[in-house]
Structures are given as structure tokens and as C-alpha cells.
């Protein structure tokens, strides 16, 4: 019934009154001539409903039956539209709407990134904006090849990139590089082992190849330790030499710590600056100005990006928030002990970074002096580490 009501509304219908004798006859004739009438009711008057197009034909029937019909109400979409027929503003609005639609469809409104696993989407979007792909730009000005190349240059992790435009949406599809698989067994390369640095050998574990040195020998950087060529009575065997050559090596460090230092202490004050980027236009939504560094205060900026989304699709509305954290700067003069402690911490940090899995520190000789207002720490550290380094031998296949 609802569907029928909707259809009648879209087609348009007239509620009219029937006056005079012979109302029943009039309704019977309507039915006989195929004019479907509905909602016939007798209240204060005799009301009948009929479709808009059939009403005019009813007049002849009314004459025949001697009744008077009069329109009571007009209902439906055609009558609603008829009301607006002379409205110039309506037409102007429609024209503006059409023009706006045409204009907006020539712009880029949504940028998506797909396929990234380790690379951050927001970073990629910010870089894309820098290299010429931004929301609100004209699609005709989008140089796909240039954007692809510049993004590839900016991120060496990207193996391939493809920019697809679909309507007003641009999808940046990327594939990230994968690490080379370990080809130790599959690749029949012939390798020697050479010394990575100077040292004295303390232990050797040779699994493949012919050792060229022995425990207790002092070796120089680049010296052959284990050969990948094994000479037999009849022929030479080419192998990939594998061994652990543990040697004592010396590492020297020089760390300088100025005694007068600037110390930054957060004051707890954070200034937030926000901007709304809507349809490619950036509007500041804050009255705060960008803080400037002074002698006593410095500021550090932290940028956050909040994008409006519909499901997984980015919408052309973004809020950028800059959080400027205030730090009070004070000049501090370190005592010798404090500077030494800092230098030792730095030394430990540097050693940890350089220290491999199998290496260990045997001893460290630390000396320090104060020169020109700075503490200079010199350290000589003795390590035990694996110095074997692979070096390929190019052998021509017979």
C-alpha cells in the first residue's frame, strides 16, 4: 500500500468534490470508462481521488451525469514542481550546482596510500604533498611520472610505485623492498676469509677452507686468514671458507665534553597551533603565533595530523596540530667529575653500538685531560672479536 501511495504521489493526484444528484452514478461511470478512482468518502461533502492526468477527462462524465466536480486539493510531485516553475533563483541555483560539480570533479580530493608495511602513511602523504600531489590541486596539473620518481627517490625502501586516479581520488600504490634471501647454500661462490682489522689471534674455529694463520699470530687488516682454495694431490678444491677467527684487537676513542653546557629543562608550557585544511585550502584555527627561540627559552615542534575519514577513505578535511614545547635554557658549568661521568657514559654508549654479538671487552684504559675548557677522554679498549671477513674469489667456470 505504501508503494502504491508513493507511486500516486510521484504521478500526482487530485482530490475533488462531487456535488449534485447522481454521485453514485458518476462513480460507476468512472469505473466503467476505466478511470480508477480511490478514497471515495462522504463526509461533509463527497470526496473522490483520481490521478492528475485523468481529472480533465472526468468533466465530460460529470456533464453526462449532471453533477458538478470541483478540485479540493492537488497532491504530488508534479504540483510541487509546478510551484517552482517561475523561480529564477531555483534555476540559478541549479546552474551554480552544475558548475560547481563540474569544477570539483576536476580536482583531487582524496589521496590514499596502499601497500605500505613499514613506511608510515602520514609521512608518505606529507612527502607526496611536498613533491606535488596534494588535496585540492587540479587533476590536469598532476604529473604522475614526476611524483612517482620523486617519491621513489625520497624513500629508497620503495621497490615500485604506481599512482592511480579514479574520479577525484588518487591512490598511491607502493611495494616495499624485501631483504635479499640468504643464498649461502644455493650460491656456489668461492670465498676467502680476510682480517677485518689488526689484531692477535687467540682462537680459531675453521669449518671450511684452509687456514693460513695459527693461534698467536699477529695479523694486519686485509690479511688472508682462511683460504677458500684447498690444494690436494690431484686438483684444487674451491669452497666457501667459513670460520671464526677470534683475535684481540685495539679500539681507541676520543670523547670531548665541554665543561660549559646549555641545559634544557621543560617548563611544562605547551603552545598548540592548529590549522584546518579543507578542500585544499588551509585555514588557521588558532590565534597563537609561532613562538621564537630566545636566549632563555627554546621551543621544540611536534606535528600531529588528524584526517577525516569515511571508512578507510580519506576525506578532503585535515586538521594539523603543532605542539610547541617550551624549554628553559640555563648555562651550567660541569665539575670535572660530572664531565668525566658524562664522557664515560658516552664511551659506554659508543662501545655498545660497535660491539657485535660475539665480541667482548677484555680491558679498557681510560685517561682524561682538561684542555681549552673541555674534558677530553682518551680510551684504549682491548676486545676479543671475530675478525673474519668474507672476500669473494672470482673463478672462471671451465
Amino acid at each position, binding site marked *: 500500500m505504501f508503494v502504491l501511495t508513493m507511486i500516486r504521489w510521484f504521478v500526482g493526484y487530485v482530490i475533488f468534490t462531487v456535488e449534485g444528484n447522481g454521485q*453514485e452514478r458518476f462513480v460507476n461511470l468512472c469505473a*466503467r470508462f*476505466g478511470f*480508477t*478512482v*480511490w*478514497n471515495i*468518502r*462522504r463526509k461533509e461533502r463527497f470526496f473522490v481521488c483520481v490521478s492528475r492526468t485523468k481529472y480533465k477527462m472526468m468533466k465530460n462524465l460529470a456533464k453526462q451525469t449532471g453533477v458538478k466536480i470541483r478540485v479540493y486539493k492537488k497532491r504530488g510531485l508534479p504540483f510541487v514542481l509546478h510551484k517552482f516553475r517561475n523561480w529564477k533563483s531555483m534555476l540559478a541555483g541549479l546552474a551554480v550546482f552544475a558548475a560547481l560539480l563540474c569544477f570539483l570533479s576536476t580536482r583531487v580530493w582524496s589521496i590514499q596510500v596502499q601497500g605500505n608495511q613499514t613506511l608510515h602513511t602520514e609521512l608518505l602523504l606529507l612527502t607526496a604533498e611536498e613533491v606535488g600531489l596534494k588535496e585540492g590541486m587540479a587533476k590536469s596539473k598532476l604529473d604522475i611520472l614526476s611524483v612517482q620518481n620523486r617519491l621513489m627517490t625520497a624513500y629508497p625502501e620503495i621497490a615500485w610505485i604506481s599512482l592511480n586516479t579514479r574520479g577525484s581520488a588518487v591512490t598511491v600504490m607502493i611495494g616495499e623492498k624485501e631483504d635479499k634471501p640468504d643464498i649461502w647454500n644455493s650460491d656456489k661462490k668461492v670465498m676467502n676469509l680476510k682480517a677485518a682489522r689488526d689484531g692477535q689471534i687467540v682462537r680459531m674455529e675453521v669449518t671450511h677452507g684452509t687456514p693460513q694463520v695459527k693461534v698467536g699470530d699477529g695479523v694486519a687488516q686485509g690479511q688472508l686468514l682462511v683460504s677458500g682454495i684447498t690444494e690436494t694431490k690431484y686438483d684444487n678444491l674451491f669452497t666457501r671458507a667459513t670460520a671464526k677467527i677470534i683475535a684481540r684487537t685495539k679500539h681507541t676513542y676520543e670523547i670531548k665534553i665541554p665543561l660549559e653546557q646549555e641545559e634544557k629543562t621543560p617548563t611544562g608550557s605547551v603552545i598548540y597551533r592548529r590549522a584546518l585544511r579543507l578542500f585544499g585550502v588551509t585555514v588557521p584555527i588558532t590565534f597563537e603565533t609561532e613562538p621564537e627561540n630566545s636566549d632563555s627559552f627554546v621551543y621544540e615542534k611536534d606535528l600531529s595530523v588528524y584526517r577525516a575519514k569515511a571508512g578507510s577513505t580519506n576525506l578532503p578535511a585535515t586538521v594539523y596540530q603543532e605542539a610547541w614545547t617550551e624549554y628553559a635554557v640555563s648555562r651550567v658549568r660541569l665539575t670535572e667529575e660530572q664531565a668525566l661521568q658524562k664522557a664515560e657514559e658516552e664511551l659506554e654508549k659508543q662501545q655498545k653500538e660497535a660491539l657485535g654479538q660475539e665480541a667482548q671487552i677484555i680491558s679498557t684504559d681510560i685517561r682524561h685531560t682538561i684542555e681549552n675548557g673541555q674534558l677530553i677522554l682518551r680510551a684504549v679498549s682491548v676486545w676479543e672479536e671475530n675478525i673474519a671477513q668474507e672476500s669473494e674469489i672470482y673463478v672462471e667456470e671451465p
Partner: protein
Amino acid sequence: MRKAQGEQEKQKEKGGMRGLAKIANVLQLPAAVVAGVAHMQVNGNHEAVLEGCGGIVEYTDETVRVKTGKCITKFSGKNLEIKCIQIDSLMIQGFITAIEFQF
């Protein structure tokens, strides 16, 4: 002469109708289909659908009289409305209190 012929034809028609109704009864077929008599469907006391009717004879909000073959079917009640009417069917809605067949 013509009057007499007309009466004879009417009698034949009546006889034919009765005959068809009888056949429908014997064959246990719906009379509405075979004999073309009116068929009524009443939903509760608020709606009645009448098929095979010959037109409205009288309509007020308390009475609807409809020609159905030889007889006239009278619907009595309150706030009666003819929801829809077509060439041989109509739908009545309202508070129906009685249905009467008048010969």
C-alpha cells in the same frame, strides 16, 4: 412482440445462470469462476473486497449498496469508505456491522 422476445431472452439468461451455478455445484468448482456470480472477501469487519459487482446503487458513510447480479448487497456500518473502485470490483473499508442481501 419485441417485449415478449426480450422477456424470453431474460428468462433464458436466468435459466442459463441457474444451470451454470448448478453445474459448478455438482462439479464442486467455484461458482465465481464458472457461473460469474459475485465473489466477496471480508477481512474482519473493517474491509470487504467485492468482485463481479455491477456498480454502486447507494453510498453514504453508513450504508453502501452494491448491485451484485440479481440481488443487491448492502453493507451497513460507520465511516464506510470506498477505498478503490474498478469496472467490476470494489473495496470497502470502515466499521462494518452488517452485510445484507436484498432481492
